[in-house]
């Protein structure tokens, strides 16, 4: 699936998007998997309360299932307007 990062999450991880092959069943498991990979991921995902997630471009939650999902995005709370 495609994993996208925005704002300071993108800056901490160092890339705007990547292709991830994963067996993770939920968003939370994907976060654990990425965090275990490298320190920059662990740093970006350290405080989950400061993070929001979109699954296939819809705001979602960390317990959302990933079966059939094409795109997951991580970002801080939005500041539009």
């Amino acid at each position: 699936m495609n994993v996208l990062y925005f704002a300071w999450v993108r800056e901490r991880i160092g890339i705007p998007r990547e292709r991830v092959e994963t067996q993770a069943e939920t968003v939370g498991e994907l976060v654990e998997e990425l965090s275990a990979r490298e320190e920059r991921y662990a740093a970006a995902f350290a405080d989950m309360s400061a993070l929001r997630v979109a699954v296939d471009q819809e705001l979602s939650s960390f317990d959302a299932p990933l079966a059939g999902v094409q795109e997951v995005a991580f970002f801080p709370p939005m500041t539009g307007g």
Partner: protein
Amino acid sequence: MRIVVQQAPFDFGQEAQDFASGHSNMGAIVTFTGVVRDTGDGALEAMEIEHYPGMTEAALTKIADEALARWSLGDVLVIHRHGRLVPGEMIMMVATASRHRKDAFEAAEFLMDYLKSRAPFWKREVTGQGAAWVAARDEDEAALERW
């Protein structure tokens, strides 16, 4: 309904005029425009706005659909810019048309409250000291509860 996400500036007067004309059965047109505000000490050089192409348009459409479902509206317009803006530049505007002003005002406030914290935009302030992401405010989240 018209949803526009663009980097380029927009002409507020022209947009308001175009929106208002062609709605002769609407007695009330409300517009709101957000402007890049200087911090007061002249320190703000620019506001950089990042967004999530694809989701942004979908999220704005969903918010506008919700407004159309909840209030008696003839039309809704949302324009939101992204990229680098300097103080004084217009960031975004919403416009609502209704037969009566109450619906137009309430729907415009609803649109503003929701697109502040439910549309995927992130602001970064650039000053002489560097750049910093704007943190979401608790009161912006709390503002959603009244709807």
